[in-house]
């Protein structure tokens, strides 16, 4: 076992990430239950503790696995260039940071901002871990060669994440913090760009996996791949503006944000154009699990993008901003797209995770479909709760907020039940390759 970890230290990222996913799912269900039973889990700190616990676990699941998969892919491409010492240092810093974050929550030591509520001191090891990640990337990758698109995506995601993570703490400067509207605009920009950064990391891995699955080396060097990369980069830098339509900023900010959001139609058209082709090849390769996850991600990209474009139209955004419709969008992209690509990566890249599983057990196939079905119900129920609130916000004879929450109970019930099914099915899907990895380690 230790010998194997020494051989593939990158696997530690994925083991840590799988634990974080388990925590994210469990704390998410627990936080959801508080919508139905307000006095539940008060001894654990209630919603105030469980929500940040859930959000941070989910964010670190994505970051840790994105970093680990990139490293595993780079090892496949350049088997001798990995520096184990840098991996060990990055893991150590990540562990210190993540432990600090959850310790901070468990003792109620908040002080940060939305999505990063922990005491800001714990941002230091996380930022340093990311510096090591970036250093390691440039140690492995030669700058003198022509890069496939996934190198550009990994580099862009890594650099922008570090830059935006630092920007995330500009509020510590009183002059920035004291101007509420500017501060909130920065906060939305940061949130949008951080998501854009890890999307670049994960989409880079998706390109690598597609190249590996198809065996077509030209795929990652084609003009279309680079066009999609530049569109992603453009969106990473500018597509945060639709979050601030209701902020009292200058009208040109709103207008540009609207125009930028509409460029996503190009992505949607591309997906629609290739849809038939994908379906045809899917029939042949669908039994292969890593491919199956990529197909699922394709479906969620289509649904999430259509959803995102609609809610980016200011007149519709006015009804959905600040409601669970935004959460539906976040869940569709985080679980449906990012987590499906990550699962595909774990099944393909984690050494020996698939060694004894040429035929996947039936419970795994069932888990896959339960995960897709429950995510769809989860997504619909969040949209339902959001639309109910949107109608309420525009009503001229408003009932109280408390009555609105009571009215929305059926939607909350649906998202707790579907969330529980997601917890069970996604846990099964992620722990299967991890347990295989351990089983095969014991044998070897």
């Amino acid at each position: 076992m230790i010998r194997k970890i020494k051989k593939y230290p990158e696997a530690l990222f994925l083991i840590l990430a799988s634990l974080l996913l388990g925590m994210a799912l469990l704390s998410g269900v627990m936080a959801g239950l508080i919508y139905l039973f307000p006095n539940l889990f008060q001894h654990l700190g209630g919603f105030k503790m469980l929500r940040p616990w859930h959000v941070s676990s989910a964010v670190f699941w994505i970051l840790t696995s994105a970093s680990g998969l990139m490293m595993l892919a780079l090892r496949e491409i350049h088997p001798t260039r990995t520096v184990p010492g840098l991996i060990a240092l990055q893991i150590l810093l990540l562990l210190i940071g993540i432990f600090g974050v959850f310790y901070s929550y468990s003792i109620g030591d908040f002080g940060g901002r939305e999505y990063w509520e922990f005491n800001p001191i714990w941002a230091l090891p996380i930022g340093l871990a990311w510096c090591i990640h970036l250093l390691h990337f440039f140690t492995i990758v030669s700058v003198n060669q022509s890069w496939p698109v996934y190198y550009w995506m990994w580099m862009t995601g890594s650099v922008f994440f570090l830059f935006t993570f630092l920007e995330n703490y500009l509020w510590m400067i009183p002059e920035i913090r004291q101007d509420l509207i500017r501060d909130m605009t920065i906060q939305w920009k940061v949130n949008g760009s951080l998501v854009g950064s890890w999307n670049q990391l994960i989409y880079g891995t998706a390109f690598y996996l597609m190249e590996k699955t198809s065996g077509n080396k030209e795929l990652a060097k084609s003009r279309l791949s680079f066009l999609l990369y530049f569109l992603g980069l453009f969106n990473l830098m500018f597509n945060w503006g639709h979050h601030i339509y209701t902020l009292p900023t200058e009208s040109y900010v709103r207008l540009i944000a609207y125009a930028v959001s509409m460029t996503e139609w190009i992505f949607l058209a591309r997906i629609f154009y290739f849809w038939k082709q994908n379906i045809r090849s899917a029939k042949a390769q669908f039994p292969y699990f890593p491919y199956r996850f990529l197909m699922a991600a394709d479906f969620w990209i289509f649904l999430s993008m259509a959803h995102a474009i609609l809610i980016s139209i200011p007149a519709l955004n006015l009804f959905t901003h600040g409601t669970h419709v935004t959460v539906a969008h976040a869940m569709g992209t985080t679980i449906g797209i990012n987590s499906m690509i990550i699962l595909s990566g774990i099944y393909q890249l984690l050494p020996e995770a698939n060694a004894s599983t040429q035929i996947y057990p039936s419970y795994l196939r069932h888990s896959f479909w339960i995960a897709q079905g429950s995510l769809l119900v989860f997504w619909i129920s969040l949209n339902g709760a959001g639309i109910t609130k949107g109608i309420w916000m525009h009503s001229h004879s408003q009932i109280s907020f408390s009555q609105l929450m009571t009215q929305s109970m059926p939607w909350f019930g649906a998202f707790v039940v579907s969330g529980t099914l997601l917890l069970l099915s996604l846990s099964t899907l992620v722990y299967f390759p991890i347990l295989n990895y351990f089983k095969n380690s014991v044998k070897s």
Partner: protein
Amino acid sequence: MYSATIYQLDSTPILKPITYKVELADQGKIIWQQNNCSTCHQIYGLGGYLGPDLTNIYSHPAGINYLKGIIRGGSKQMPEFKFTDSEMDALLEFLHSVDQSGTADPRNFTLHPNGNISPKVP
């Protein structure tokens, strides 16, 4: 360039004249963060969904004492917060500053045929 414009001071117009104490409101903002208020409440739609948006709670017809009562006594889902008087003053001043910055009520916007929106002129 577009992203950089948000750092320019004049890109964020304050709609109403400032009548709150800036330093005290700043202390209140720190208290807001330290108590993780945004996990349940929103300001301009940013924050959690368990409680109501508090952008304009300061000018709610029920008044400041009602607000203090809710914060100190809690409600069905909201825990009690045992703030000192100075902490309470700072937090309320922060909410005052938020209220002064504009309105989060979507009914105060005009919808245009091209899909855009604009705030209604008071």
